[in-house]
C-alpha cells in the first residue's frame, strides 16, 4: 500500500494544468481567442477609419474647397451666377449630356437654366431652374448638392423679400417662423460614442473566452461521465472546483489580453488625428489589471451556472443568457455617461467600463476609486465561487 502525502496545492495545480492543456486542444476555445485578436482590431480599425474620414471630409467640404457647379445657360442668369460665386461655388462649363454625366458620376450636380428664365424673372412670376442630381447618392457626396440648393434657395428668398418690399409689404409677413439651429457636436463627442462601445465589446470577449471551458469542465465533464471518477480521487471537491475556475480565468484573461493587444495594434497603425484616444503599454496594463477582478467574477458566474445545469446543451443555452447580465450595467454608459464616483464605482462591469473609457480618453481616475471597483468585484467573485462550491458538494452533482 502506497501512502503519499498529497497537498491541496499540488492537486489544484494538477487539475488546472490538465484543464488548460485539454482546452488548448479544443478548437472552439482557440477560435474564440483567434477571433478576439483578429476581428477586434479590424473592427476598431474600420470604425475609426470611417469616423476619421467622415469628419475630415465634412470639414473640407463645408469650409475649404469651392463646390464645382457646371451650369447650362449661365448667360440667362448673370445675377444668380454672381450670387453663387459669392457663396463659394465655382461655375464651370457643362458637359454635353448632363444627365449621362450625372448618372456616370462625373458630376454630382448640374444646374440647367432655360431661356424662359429671364422672361419669367422680369414679369415677377416664378422662374424655373432645373437641378440634375442623383438622389441615390448618400453621405458626403450629397453635400455639394445641398450647398447649391441652399444657395439658390437663399437667393430666391432674398429676391422674394425685395419684391415684397417693392410692393410695400414687410417680408416677415410671409415668413411666420424662422428656425435657428446650432449643432454642438465635436469630433471628441464622436470619439466618445465610439468609446462607449469598447467596454461592451471587451466584457463580451472576456465572457466568451472562458465560456466553453466553464461548460466543458462542469456540465460537459458530467455528461461525458468523467466527473465521477475525478471526484473519487483523493482531492477535496472545493479544490476541484477552484482548479476548474482557475483554468477558466486563465483563458478569459488571456482573451482579454489578446483583445487589448489588438486594440493597441489598431491604434498604433492607425493615423487618427481627430479622435483623441491614448493607448500606451501603461494604459493597456492598467486596464488589464483593473479588469482582472471582473474576469474572476464573470468566470465564477459561468462556472456556477454551468455547475447547476445538467447537460452541455442546457449549460450552453443558459450561459448565452448569462453572458448578457454583465452588459446590462454598461447600457447606462451609452445613455447617461456617468462620471466615476464612489456611488457607482462599486458596481461590477459598470466600474470596469468606466475605467476602460476614462483610461482610453487619457483621463485620470483616482486610485481609491479603482481600488473600490477591484475589491467589490473580487467580493462578488468570492460569493459566486462560494455558491459554486456549495453546488459542487451536493450529491446531485453526479446526477
Amino acid at each position: 500500500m502506497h501512502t503519499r502525502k498529497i497537498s491541496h496545492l499540488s492537486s489544484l495545480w494538477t487539475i488546472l494544468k490538465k484543464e488548460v492543456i485539454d482546452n488548448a486542444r479544443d478548437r472552439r476555445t482557440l477560435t474564440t481567442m483567434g477571433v478576439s485578436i483578429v476581428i477586434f482590431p479590424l473592427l476598431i480599425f474600420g470604425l475609426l477609419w470611417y469616423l476619421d474620414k467622415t469628419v475630415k471630409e465634412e470639414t473640407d467640404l463645408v469650409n475649404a474647397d469651392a463646390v464645382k457647379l457646371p451650369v447650362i445657360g449661365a448667360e440667362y442668369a448673370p445675377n444668380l451666377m454672381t450670387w453663387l460665386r459669392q457663396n463659394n461655388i465655382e461655375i464651370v462649363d457643362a458637359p454635353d449630356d448632363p444627365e449621362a454625366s450625372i448618372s456616370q458620376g462625373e458630376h454630382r450636380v448640374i444646374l440647367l437654366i432655360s431661356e424662359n428664365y429671364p422672361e419669367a424673372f422680369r414679369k415677377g412670376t416664378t422662374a424655373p431652374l432645373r437641378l440634375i442630381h442623383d438622389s441615390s447618392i448618400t453621405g458626403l457626396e450629397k453635400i455639394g448638392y445641398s450647398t447649391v440648393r441652399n444657395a439658390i434657395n437663399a437667393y430666391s428668398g432674398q429676391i422674394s423679400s425685395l419684391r415684397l418690399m417693392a410692393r410695400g409689404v414687410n417680408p416677415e409677413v410671409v415668413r411666420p417662423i424662422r428656425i435657428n439651429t446650432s449643432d454642438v457636436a465635436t469630433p471628441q463627442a464622436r470619439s466618445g460614442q465610439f468609446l462607449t462601445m469598447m467596454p461592451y465589446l471587451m466584457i463580451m470577449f472576456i465572457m466568451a473566452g472562458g465560456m466553453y471551458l466553464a461548460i466543458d469542465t462542469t456540465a460537459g465533464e458530467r455528461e461525458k461521465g468523467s466527473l465521477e471518477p475525478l471526484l473519487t480521487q483523493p482531492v477535496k471537491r472545493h479544490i476541484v472546483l477552484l482548479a476548474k475556475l482557475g483554468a477558466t480565468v486563465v483563458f478569459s484573461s488571456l482573451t482579454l489580453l489578446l483583445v487589448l493587444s489588438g486594440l493597441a495594434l489598431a491604434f498604433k497603425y492607425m493615423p487618427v488625428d481627430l479622435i483623441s484616444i491614448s493607448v500606451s503599454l501603461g494604459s493597456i496594463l492598467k486596464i488589464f489589471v483593473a479588469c482582472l477582478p471582473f474576469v474572476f467574477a464573470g468566470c465564477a458566474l459561468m462556472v456556477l451556472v454551468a455547475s447547476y445545469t445538467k447537460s452541455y446543451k442546457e449549460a450552453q443555452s443558459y450561459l448565452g443568457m448569462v453572458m448578457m447580465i454583465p452588459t446590462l450595467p454598461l447600457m447606462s454608459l451609452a445613455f447617461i455617461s456617468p462620471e466615476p464616483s464612489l456611488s457607482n464605482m462599486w458596481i461590477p462591469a459598470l466600474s470596469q467600463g468606466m475605467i476602460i473609457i476614462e483610461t482610453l480618453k487619457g483621463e485620470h481616475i483616482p486610485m481609491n476609486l479603482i481600488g473600490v471597483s477591484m475589491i467589490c468585484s473580487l467580493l462578488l467573485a468570492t460569493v459566486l465561487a462560494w455558491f459554486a462550491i456549495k453546488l459542487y458538494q451536493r450529491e446531485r452533482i453526479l446526477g
Partner: protein
Amino acid sequence: MIEVLDLKKCFGAVKAIDGVSFSAQDGKITGLLGPNGAGKSTTLRILYTAFRPDSGKALIDNRDVTVDKLAVRTSIGVLTHGAGIYERLTARENVRYFGELHGMSGKELDMRVDELAELLDMNDFISRRAKGFSQGQKTKVALARALVHKPRNVLLDEPTNGLDIMATRGLREVIQRLKDAGHCVLFSSHVMQEVAALCDEIVIIANGTVAASGSPDSLRQETNEANLEDAFVKAIGSEEGLI
C-alpha cells in the same frame, strides 16, 4: 478489505438500498449480482465516497468511508459506471492525470503507466488521443486509470458493459491477476455467467437488500438447486432483469 453493515439510502421517496450488509476479503473476487435497479451501483457509490449513506456503516481497510474520505479514496481504485475519459488527451495523459492526483510523478509514474499498458494490452493506442476510441479501448484506459496508484481495493461497476468477447476475456484475466496479487476486488454485474465464472464470493442483491450470499457452491446448496442459474432465480424470487 471491505465491510458493509446495514447500509440504507433513499433518493426522495425511493428506497435505493434498504439494509445491505456483506464483506469482501483481500485476495478474493466478490461479485455484486442483481437485476437493474437493485441497488448495486448505489452501494458501490457509497463505498467510493460519492454518496453518503442515510444510515449504516461502510469500512474500507477499517476506515469509515463517511469520515476518512480522502484516505479511503487513496486506498481504492474505481471503475465507475459508463466511465468517461478525456477525449482530447492521449491514453497515456489520461492515466498520468489520475496518477498525479494520487501524488505520483516522474519516473515512478511513467514506469507504472508502461506496466499497465503492457498488462492491459494498450501499447497500440497508448500515445493516441482518446477521441474515436472503441468502447473496449476506453474501458481499458479507465481501468488503467483506476489501477495506476496500485490500490489495495478495486471497485468495478459493470466493467464488461459494452465490451466485445475478446475485451471481456482480457478483463477477466486482469481481474484474476489482481486477485492473485492479493487485491480485494469487488465488482457489480447483472450478467450471471460472468459472476459465476469469476467470483469466489457472490452477493445477490434484489430490491435494495441482500437476498443471498456465499460461494457459488454454498449458494447452490442453500437453495437446493444444482444449477447456479436456478439458484439465482430462486434467491431473487423472479427472473426479471437478469441476463
